[in-house]
């Protein structure tokens, strides 16, 4: 693990301080938007951990978000857990789900994992609707009213920072190098003695924590969840687009993608829902074909920036 240069550290501290004092000056709308942005940074960063680093595409990462939201909401409504603890439990639930899916699918090379993830959110939606007693079925779950936007703002921000810091730690470590070896050539990685299954599984488990916790926080923040609101394919698509646009397999790519696309989405595209999704499809195609390393990859090439950003 290498330590960033002092100037970079200073910049980071200033940025964090600005975000931390923002609620004292910002409008209610501004604070809500920032909270959303933190959520997207955490989600995009988490997707990057499995798909950006190992090359195993997760088409269903929203499943971890959704199961975190349900686990936390059930604990809050049925067992009166405090929301912070319940959200952390949401992270645990997401890891458990990741283990169940990752164990059979990641032992194999190839597209099995991607496709298994593709079907996962539909299945969870069906299961949640079926177990009505626990989940409220199609009616959803209403959480007790609570005014906690500000604490949730800080916790969500902390999760976004944690995911980004974790990404930095992984990318600059031997563990991260092994993950990237798997991405570049899995057979060679095996020949070098890397236990590819365990590494892929570990990456998946780490990538499930963030969405699980964030799901719990988002559920608490909105006060109401239902199957269609926490398992939308659109959330997975947005995560993928953010990471691809910013630069997959990098530390700051997901952050950059989340910031740029979130504000564009808020300012312009939210009014044209299908056009907006169509554009996301087009961005994915364009990035894969024209700039597979994303915006950050282009900058790295042009300005000879280090690989570890």
């Amino acid at each position, binding site marked *: 693990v290498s330590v960033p240069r002092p100037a970079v550290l200073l910049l980071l501290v200033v940025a964090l301080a600005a975000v931390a004092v923002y609620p004292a000056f910002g409008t209610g709308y501004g604070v809500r938007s920032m909270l959303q942005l933190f959520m997207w940074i955490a989600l995009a960063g988490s997707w990057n951990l499995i798909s950006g680093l190992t090359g195993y595409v997760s*088409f269903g990462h929203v499943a971890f978000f959704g199961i975190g939201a349900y686990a936390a909401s059930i604990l809050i409504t049925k067992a009166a857990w405090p929301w912070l603890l319940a959200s952390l439990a949401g992270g645990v639930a997401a890891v458990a789900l990741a283990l169940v899916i990752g164990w059979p699918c990641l032992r*194999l090379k190839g*597209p099995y994992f*991607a*496709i298994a993830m593709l*079907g996962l959110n539909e299945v969870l939606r069906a299961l949640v609707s079926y177990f009505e007693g626990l989940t409220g079925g199609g009616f959803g779950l209403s959480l007790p009213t609570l005014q906690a936007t500000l604490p949730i703002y800080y916790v969500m921000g902390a999760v976004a920072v944690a995911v980004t810091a974790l990404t930095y730690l992984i990318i600059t470590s031997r563990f991260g190098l092994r993950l990237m070896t798997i991405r570049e050539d899995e057979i060679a990685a095996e020949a070098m003695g890397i236990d590819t299954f365990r590494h892929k599984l570990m990456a998946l488990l780490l990538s499930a924590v963030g969405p699980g916790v964030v799901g719990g926080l988002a559920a608490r923040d909105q006060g109401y969840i239902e199957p269609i609101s926490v398992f939308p394919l659109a959330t997975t698509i947005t995560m993928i687009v953010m990471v691809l646009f910013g630069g997959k397999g990098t530390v700051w790519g997901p952050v950059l993608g989340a910031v740029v696309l979130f504000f564009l989405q808020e300012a312009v595209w939210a009014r044209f829902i*299908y056009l907006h999704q*169509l554009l996301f499809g087009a961005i994915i*195609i364009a990035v894969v074909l024209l700039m597979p390393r994303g915006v950050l990859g282009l900058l790295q090439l042009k300005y000879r920036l280090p690989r570890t950003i």
Partner: protein
Amino acid sequence: MNVVITPAMVGQVVVSGILAGALYAMVALGLALIFGVMRVINIAHGPLLMLGAYATYFVYSVTGLNPYATLPISMAALFAVGVLLQRTLVFRVVDAPELSSLLLTFGVSIALVNLAQLGFSSDLRAVEFLTGSFVAGPIAFSKSRVVAFLVAAAITAGAFLFLKSTRLGKAIRATSQSREVAMVCGINVQRIHLLTFGLGSALAAAGGTLIAMIVAIQPEMGQVWTFKSFLVIVLGGAGNYPGALLGGMLLGLVEQLAALFLTTQLSEAVAYVLLVVVLLVRPTGLLGGRQT
């Protein structure tokens, strides 16, 4: 909920499962061909099926043609779409890492679904043509499903015959076994790729036409078919084309049994559990490895 399960109900389930199975097999064969020849999992396979259903709907409602007669039209249209996709986009990722082709076809899938939302709106549409059922003793078969079964079986048989005994079919199988050797034998591999993507899309379109008369048509009807087709391929063994038949029948039966013993809601979850179990126990598929 205490339901008495009679032999007639089981018979009904087996019949419905087999009827659905042929459709699954035909659609999955399209995905399996593309995967076998190019090692590309086409995530847009389901949305192509959706376009096939719309093709039938529009031709039927504009011209009043018998919807079964629209089959060649929708297949030809989607063959063209498939060739176009391959020619403009997919050929660029055939040799790239798997991540690229998965993400590219995922992007195509999103684009197609949302183009359909924009162009056709998300209203539910239906082709009400062959309603009602054939009744044989205690078992009833929905007419449109019986016809869909027969047509799907015929098309699948035709596709196998094409692969088995025509020069082009042999070229496709050769390319799927080894691209380099196929090239050495003078096969134009690029053209085989175009043809394969077109054929795969046409098989999806045929599925779309047939289920247009069974379920409601809407832009998001397709995605679940990508997953189901892949499940069928895994059940039968990737790269093993006849395996798709077995896989399709098995998926149809399992879904119907789940609907009988559990609820329809859970039948989708059961199909998923089936995938996970097969990957765990026998990842090479029930019929074993690659044999084209």
